């Protein structure tokens, strides 16, 4: 397998094709693109959005190809990924988080379409909202007729840190095949007071305790990244919740 790594800090706009048997790492902040994954190729897509920008990606997967998204949104106008599992053996995994404060508004969409049988998808999106920030999450799993033996899961969890924060969540399922396992889960709530209390009895201030809990909340996402990216994401995270 050919392994390529591409770091693009600017907008990525246009059509991109990943050749057969190739692995590609992409790091980006914003863009609007169509991504075509040829047979047996794979992509790790890292998106760190910290400007009020848009990111839209339409991915089309051919046989046995795989795409993994990792995203951290600190400031985002729009974030949308549409993934089409067009052939057997394709797989998509998405893990991401958003962190909002002041008057920020997050508009996040993840659409997954299982076009063919034997396809798998998994989406995990976690959010933390401070102050008057808002989120609007729409996540759709669509399983087309005949797309049997598919497995898909979507979950969206939100922590509201202030009285004025608002979370809207619409996780939906559209299922036209029967031999499937499709499920979604969503939770919205505030941080656990007992956890905060415990940390405070250990000498942390309330602020520090909250910060630690948020880091722990995002850890399952951030820990998946390699060292260099972990540092980058952690830096952005620390800067925001200071």
């Amino acid at each position: 397998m050919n392994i390529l790594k591409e770091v693009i800090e600017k907008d990525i706009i246009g059509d991109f094709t990943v050749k057969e048997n190739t692995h590609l790492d992409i790091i980006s902040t914003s863009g609007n693109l169509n991504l075509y994954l040829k047979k047996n190729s794979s992509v790790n897509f890292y998106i760190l959005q910290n400007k009020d920008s848009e990111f839209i990606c339409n991915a089309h997967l051919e046989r046995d190809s795989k795409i993994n998204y990792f995203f951290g949104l600190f400031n985002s106008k729009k974030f949308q990924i549409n993934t089409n599992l067009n052939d057997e053996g394709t797989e998509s995994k998405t893990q991401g988080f958003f962190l909002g404060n002041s008057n920020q508004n997050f508009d996040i969409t993840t659409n997954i379409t299982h076009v063919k049988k034997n396809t798998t998808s998994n989406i995990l999106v976690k959010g933390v909202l401070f102050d008057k920030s808002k989120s609007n999450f729409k996540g759709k799993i669509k399983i087309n007729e005949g797309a049997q033996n598919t497995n898909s899961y979507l979950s969206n969890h939100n922590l509201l840190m202030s009285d004025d924060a608002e979370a809207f969540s619409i996780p939906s399922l559209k299922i036209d095949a029967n031999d499937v396992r499709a499920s979604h889960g969503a939770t919205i709530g505030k941080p656990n007071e007992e956890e905060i209390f415990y940390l405070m009895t250990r000498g942390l201030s309330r602020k520090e305790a909250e910060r630690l809990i948020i880091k722990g909340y995002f850890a399952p996402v951030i820990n998946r990244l390699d060292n260099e990216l972990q540092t980058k994401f952690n830096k952005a995270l620390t800067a925001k919740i200071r």
Partner: protein
Amino acid sequence: MTKIKEVKNYLDTEYKYGFKDPEKFSFKTKKGLNEDIIKQISKIKNEPEWMLDLRLKAYRHFKDRIMPKWGADLSKIKFDDIYYYGKPEGEQTDDWKNVPKDIRNTFDRLGIPEAEKKFLAGVGAQYESEVIYHNLKKDLQDKGVVFLDMDGGLREYAELVKKYFGKLVPYTDNKFAALNTAVWSGGSFIYVPSGVKVDLPLQAYFRINAKNIGQFERTLIIADKGSYVHYVEGCTAPVYTTDSLHSAVVELFALEGATIRYTTIQNWSQNVYNLVTKRASAEKNARVEWIDGNLGSKVTMKYPAIILKGEKAHGEVISVAFAGKNQVQDAGAKIMHMAPNTTSQITSKSVSKDGGRTTYRGLLRVAKGCKNVKSNVVCDALILDEKSATDTIPYMEIQENDVSIGHEASVGRVSEEQLFYLMSRGFSEEQALGMIVRGFMDEFVRELPMEYAIELNRLIELNMEGSVG
């Protein structure tokens, strides 16, 4: 897999209530709808002026309002081909003996008079547009419980009706609420005085008999402080090749500390469009439960709603849908938390087979400032064959942080392992499949009064006929 397919062939629904009587009307409006017809309906009912005004306003709104662009396909409803009001012969009575013979036979076959004797506190039976039989146990009458048809309610309790009618579901709410407000007839009016507990359920039974007729009943239940009432409705119709329309509006007011439980077993024949608006408000410490079973109809669009207005109010919706061949069950629930310390639970279970489509469509809203709200939503769907489909569309709008909100949904099929396990214990494949489907719906069935639970289990068995026993 192939074995399951074979079993599937047995699962053809046989509709037991498809028989019909000759059509005997003492009066029927002309086909279609216009302002004159509405004036005619209002005149027959000898209504106060304000009700006619409301009907006409609602009609104008209905005419201008576009069809909903979401949900099931409603484009085939021909509003001009429907009879909007049909009064069966005979007058309303509280003695089954006085009900015209054909109609009485119908209700006998549906088992209503017998059920009344055994376990109901009161019964209303609606045939086409009018309630033909109505009775409430004497001791409840003495306690001040009012159980009338809606027309009777308007005549005898005009002030109460004026205060509550259309306050939860205004005619501007949606196109079908407007239509209902314009042409409503029949339905139930219930008032339970403060502190009175109605131990046995009150039942209303809705029957459409004639072809191309619409049924537009209107129900209003007011449970005064600390009272309790359980209302059960059932509905059936004959099978026709042309479509009928059933469009009801139901408003429930649970005042402080009151409990209303509203159970529906909808089993319309498969040529009925069932487009119903149901909404409840719950004051402080009140409790509202919608137990909503949808087995019949061609298309159902119905999302029972609860507005939790007072502190510590609790709302619960248990919804079950069964979609067979050519059926669309677009059901769900809406809960609005408008006060602190309110709690709610939505449980939805659906089964689709033979190309049927089920949808869970729900809304959960927590308004700003409503602290310590807890809500949990669980939706499960079972798809029995590859032609069938299911959708889950839950909206969550949370404007407060001191809350605990959970939502879970899952879609799957009957697993080979479950079937295999039961078969290894000596059940046939058909029995095993029947058991699994009944077990899947158990949460709903458990909430029904005993007699209904048996009836529903029997209905499910009928729907799965050939697969069981």
